[in-house]
C-alpha cells in the first residue's frame, strides 16, 4: 500500500499534517510517544477538539492520568472550550485516572472488561470518530502485570477497529494513543526528530515496553 491510498485524518496541527501527508491514518491506532512535557496530551486534546471544530467529528477521551477537570482547565488555556462540547453531547471523557482513594490491590487475574464497556458506551453515545487514550504509560504503571496490560490494550484497539469497519458515518477507532502501547503501527513523535513515520512496517519487536515505561516514571500530562 502506498501513502496516498491510506485516508488521512488531519490532526489540526498544520505543520504536522504536512509531514504526515495529510494527517493520521484513518481507521487505525496511532501511537504518540515522547518524553515528559513534549506535548502528547496537548496533541490528543487538539486532535479531538479540531476534529469537532473543523469536521464535526465527535470524540472520546479516555484519561488514565489527569482528572477530566484538569484536562478541561488545561485545554481552556489553549482556547478549547471542552465543557461546552460536552454539554453539546459531542465530547465525552472516560475517567480512568488514578486517585489514592480508588487504589486497587490485585488478587488474581483480571481484565479491562469494565473499561471496554465504558468505552463502547461512550463511543456510541456521542457517535465518536476520534478516540484518544492518555496514556499507555500510566496504565503500565498502575497495573504491575505488563502482559495483562498489553493483552487488554489490544482488546481496546480491537474494539475500535471493529467499530471502524462497521462502516457508515458511525465509524470510530481513529485514535491517538499517547505513550507507548505494546504493539502498534503508525506514527511515533519524538522530541528530537519531531516526527518519524512508519507505514505498514509491521509491529515493533515485542520486548518489554511496559517495564520501560514503568521505569521511566510518570509520563507527561
Amino acid at each position: 500500500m502506498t501513502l496516498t491510498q491510506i485516508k488521512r485524518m488531519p490532526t489540526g496541527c498544520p505543520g504536522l499534517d504536512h509531514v504526515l501527508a495529510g494527517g493520521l491514518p484513518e481507521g487505525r491506532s496511532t501511537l504518540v510517544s515522547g518524553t515528559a512535557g513534549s506535548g502528547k496530551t496537548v496533541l490528543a486534546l487538539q486532535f479531538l477538539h479540531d476534529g469537532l471544530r473543523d469536521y464535526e467529528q465527535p470524540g472520546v477521551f479516555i484519561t488514565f492520568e489527569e482528572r477530566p477537570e484538569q484536562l478541561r482547565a488545561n485545554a481552556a488555556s489553549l482556547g478549547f472550550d471542552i465543557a461546552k462540547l460536552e454539554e453539546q453531547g459531542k465530547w465525552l471523557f472516560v475517567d480512568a485516572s488514578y486517585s489514592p482513594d480508588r487504589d486497587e490491590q490485585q488478587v488474581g487475574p483480571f481484565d479491562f472488561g469494565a473499561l471496554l464497556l465504558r468505552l463502547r458506551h461512550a463511543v456510541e453515545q456521542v457517535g465518536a470518530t476520534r478516540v484518544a487514550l492518555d496514556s499507555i504509560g500510566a496504565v503500565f504503571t498502575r497495573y504491575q502485570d505488563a502482559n495483562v496490560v498489553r493483552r487488554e490494550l489490544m482488546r481496546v484497539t480491537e474494539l475500535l477497529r471493529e467499530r471502524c469497519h462497521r462502516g457508515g458515518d458511525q465509524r470510530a477507532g481513529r485514535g491517538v494513543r499517547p505513550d507507548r502501547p505494546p504493539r502498534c503501527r503508525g506514527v511515533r513523535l519524538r522530541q528530537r526528530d519531531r516526527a518519524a513515520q512508519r507505514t505498514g512496517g509491521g509491529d515493533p519487536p515485542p520486548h518489554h515496553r511496559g517495564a520501560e515505561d514503568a521505569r521511566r516514571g510518570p509520563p507527561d500530562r
Partner: protein
Amino acid sequence: MERSRDVVPLMKAHFQLFVLGRTARTALVEQQLRRAVRHLRGPVQIDVIDLTERPDLAEEHDIVATPMVMRLHPSPQVRVVGDLSDPRALATAFDLDGADDSEGDAP
C-alpha cells in the same frame, strides 16, 4: 439485589462485587469472596452487581478492571481487582481475621 442503605452502618461488613456478565467464572469469584468472609462475626452483606446491567455504576465508581470487589464497610473503603483466587492475598487485602489460607482449598 439488596440496597437498603439504612442498614449499612449496622453491618459488620458490606462488600460489592462488580462482574461483567453472569458466567461460571464470575460465580466462582463470588464463591471465593463468600468463602473468604465466612469467618467474620456478625452479618455480612455481599451485593453482586453485573455491570452489563448497570453500566452507570462502572462510570460512577470509575471502574476499569473487573472482577472488582469494593469493601464499603468497615471503612476505609478498599478495592480489590482480580478473580480472588488467592485466599491469603484476599484475606490480607481485606484484613479478614480467621480467613486464612487453610480455607482456600480451591482446586
